[in-house]
């Protein structure tokens, strides 16, 4: 009897599994009676959303179900665009402490030719874990902390090409939204790259010697680092010109080649910065090189705010739930940075920068709301803003006809922890909401 039951459920499982796969792959989906939060426009309550051929085909009060469409009852539920995390190492790093499972942080200082995308492991357990909280899309960076990182990566200046990926797919090729979304640069800074050093302002004023030596020495190192970076770009420019002129005897150089899309304005530099001074210097560098730039993880914007706004340079803010940098900085420094950006008119998006916290992306955004950021701005910073910043707003970031059907159906406000996610669609496919963690839960809940 038991055996028959098992056989039956196996068969049913196969049949159902087949059905779901078939329906998801081919059949349109009609979500009925749902409250739509398009982000780019006001909420539309109690309407239908039709997903067809991976796209949002229609939104409206009266949308007829095409033949063979799967109907999802959306009554009492909300639908949001899929959330976008603008800085992760998804697919590249499985267990932080196990080097063998980490593929960020290659050796070498100037490595723009490295492609994060081709090292994305589609089988990473992180994908099903972050999907269930509504993160459908993420920037994955070739180094921890965006531009540079720990260990070997601490020496990196250019760590490679970041990719914009979906959090579901059979292969990294299928997951790719933008194979090369940015070239990641860890900008030199006084007393350590990316501002992991001390307080240069004070050191400068006091003429104090830091751990790395005197201020004069620190400044010299900084200028040398900056000169090396500039040299590299200048060389790459010359290469670009030589290539355009079909210079005889030109040997193909993969490193310089990788910067051509940057020079052509197709791919931005994603530059890790820290203080207003490094922001200013990074902008000056980008201006001089005449390239597009996105700044990563500043801990404050301060006096650089006006410049950011004037030049329309977007910023990827790090974790909102973060400690203040200095002992005497306000306790809510990181909580209020998004509000500061908003007030200054600086365009920003959020990144979590660590795989472990990607699933908390909406809650990081909500903390900024607790400390004054308008709620709709927080929502934009994980949907339409990153879509615009990374250049995919024609496909993603809001619920509009013709865009990719990357959608999250929830029981309520997507920024609230208590809200449950009921469905996630990526390119119109209904994504499995179970993962290793839900399976372990079910298994041990049933343990006698």
């Amino acid at each position, binding site marked *: 009897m038991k055996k028959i039951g098992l056989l039956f459920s196996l068969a049913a499982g196969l049949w159902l599994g087949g059905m779901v796969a078939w329906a998801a792959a081919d059949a349109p989906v009609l979500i009925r009676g749902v409250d739509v939060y398009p982000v780019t426009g006001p909420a539309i309550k109690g309407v239908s959303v039709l997903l067809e051929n991976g796209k949002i085909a229609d939104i409206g009060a009266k949308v007829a179900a095409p033949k063979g469409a799967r109907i999802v009852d959306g009554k009492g539920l909300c639908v949001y665009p899929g959330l976008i995390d603008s800085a992760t190492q998804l697919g590249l790093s*499985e*267990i*932080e*402490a*196990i080097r063998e499972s980490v593929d960020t942080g290659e050796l070498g200082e100037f490595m723009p030719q490295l492609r994060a995308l081709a090292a994305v492991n589609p089988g990473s*357990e*992180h994908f099903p*874990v972050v999907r269930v909280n509504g993160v459908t899309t993420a920037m994955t960076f070739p180094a921890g902390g965006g531009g540079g990182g720990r260990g070997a990566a601490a020496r990196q200046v250019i760590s490679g090409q970041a990719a914009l990926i979906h959090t579901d797919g059979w292969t990294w090729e299928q997951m790719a939204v933008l194979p090369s979304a940015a070239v990641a640069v860890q900008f030199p800074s006084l007393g350590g790259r990316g501002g992991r050093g001390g307080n240069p*302002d*004070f050191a400068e*004023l*006091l*003429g104090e010697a830091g751990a790395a030596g*005197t201020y004069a020495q620190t400044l010299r190192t900084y200028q040398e680092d900056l000169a090396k970076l500039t040299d590299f770009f200048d060389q790459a420019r010359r290469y670009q010109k030589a290539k355009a002129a079909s210079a005889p005897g030109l040997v193909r150089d993969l490193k310089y080649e990788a910067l051509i899309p940057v020079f052509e304005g197709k791919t931005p530099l994603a530059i890790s910065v820290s203080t207003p001074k490094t922001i200013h210097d990074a902008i000056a560098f980008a201006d001089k090189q005449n390239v597009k730039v996105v700044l990563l993880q500043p801990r404050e914007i301060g006096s650089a705010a006006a410049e950011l706004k004037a030049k329309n340079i977007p910023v990827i803010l790090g974790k909102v*739930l*973060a*400690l*203040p940098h200095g*002992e*005497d900085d*306000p*306790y*809510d420094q990181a*909580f209020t940075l998004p509000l500061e950006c908003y007030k200054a008119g600086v365009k920003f998006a959020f990144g979590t920068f660590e*795989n*472990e916290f990607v*699933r*908390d992306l909406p*809650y990081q955004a*909500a*903390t900024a*709301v*607790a*400390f004054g950021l308008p*709620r709709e701005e927080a929502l934009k910073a994980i949907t339409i803003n990153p879509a615009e910043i990374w250049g995919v707003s024609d496909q993603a970031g809001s619920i509009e006809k013709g865009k990719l059907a990357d959608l999250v159906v929830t029981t309520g406000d997507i*920024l*609230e*922890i*208590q*809200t*449950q996610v009921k469905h996630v669609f990526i390119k119109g496919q209904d994504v499995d909401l179970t993962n290793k*963690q*839900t399976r*372990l*839960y079910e298994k*041990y*809940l049933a*343990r*006698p």
Partner: protein
Amino acid sequence: MRKLLFIALAALAPVAAETIVIENATIMTVTKGTLKGSVVIRDGKIAEVGEKVMVPQGATIIDAGGQYLIPGIIDCHSHIAVDGGVNEGSVSVSSMVDIKDVIDPEDVSIYRALAGGVTTANILHGSANAIGGKTVVLKMRWGKDAQGMIFEGALPGIKFALGENPKRAGNPPGGRGANATPVFARYPATRMGVEDVIREAFNQAKAYKAEWDAYDASAARGEHAIPPRKDLKLEALKEVLEGKRYVHAHCYRSDEILMLLRVADDYGFKIRTLQHVLEGYKVAPEILAHGAGASTFSDWWAYKIEAIDAIPYNAALMQKKGIVVSLNSDDAELMRHLNTEAAKAMKYGGVSENDALAMVTINPAKQLGIDQRVGSIEVGKDADLVIYDKHPLSDYAKVQKVLIDGTVYFDRDKAVSAAKAAAAEKQKLLDKIKQSQPRQQPARRPNG
């Protein structure tokens, strides 16, 4: 001498005997339901709780209209306010050292924790050794000296640690290959060794206790016996055997959790709390049978191999199986939003609002044996209270005021204006330095 100084300082300090009435709040008592009303505080204690209370003459009124009042948050696992390192890792059993002796009352993390609603924290030794140092419970009385921080009357504890961390100290990075040169080899290097170290320590402690028991009995009979030599390492373990010191054990995997419970059963002592206990959900019946509490993270995982089976449902699952569960931080940042960590137990596993709040208030109080004093809003308990502007289980909420023993230790309005003043002062100082002559660098002496 130190005590005298403390008494002198205490005499100078303002007496916290102010009578305060917090009015119009939504009061979440945790143990006696939720009501709209007022709380009267007298002599640092909760004197009255009700929809309508008698306002004593001359009482200070705090109008908490539209706001929420909860008991002060208790963090069962923290390492803040420790002067210097938290690990005496040179030996595998360091039960002779005490965190109480190295409290740093000026650690700004105390203030930041306070600003996140934490009023009490269990300050633990690190996890470098199987049996670590002694631990202490502190109240976040920012501004008091080290002695003034200590939660008077709270039973002290001791830290145990299982798994990767105690193993690691004996197995330095560089691997075990033929070419590996261990910097130092400290037993144990495996989970087997961790068990042995704990058994051996209690072997000794039992013999030591027997010596003392024999001596005490003989002395009680009026015989002139010679007392045994006092052993400071075994003294702490003797206290564990006598139930006078709580064991707080860092652990991850289910095998090591079960091992520790069985060792404790064999030697006749209790594990008061299992800390982290990320696979606690796998051995919930065993934990329950032993009577240990479980203090875990809400959703941390994947940062090391022993955290790979961590599930965000851990807290909920263990609670469903009858274990007293708390959510802790182990982190100066996470500590500042344990309220929303509690909300995650609602999302992952469907814990009720009240049970979720209990995980950061009355449950940790029970685990630390201080539930007669703190952890809920009840008449006679310490007036350790937090006022939030919104529902504390929403991530839109922020802390407005925090009281400990009926004294306001944190007030957001004051903190915001103080931060402005501090920033202005800093700028003034910077300007002053800029105007002054550069300082003469002291001549450097050659090393030697």
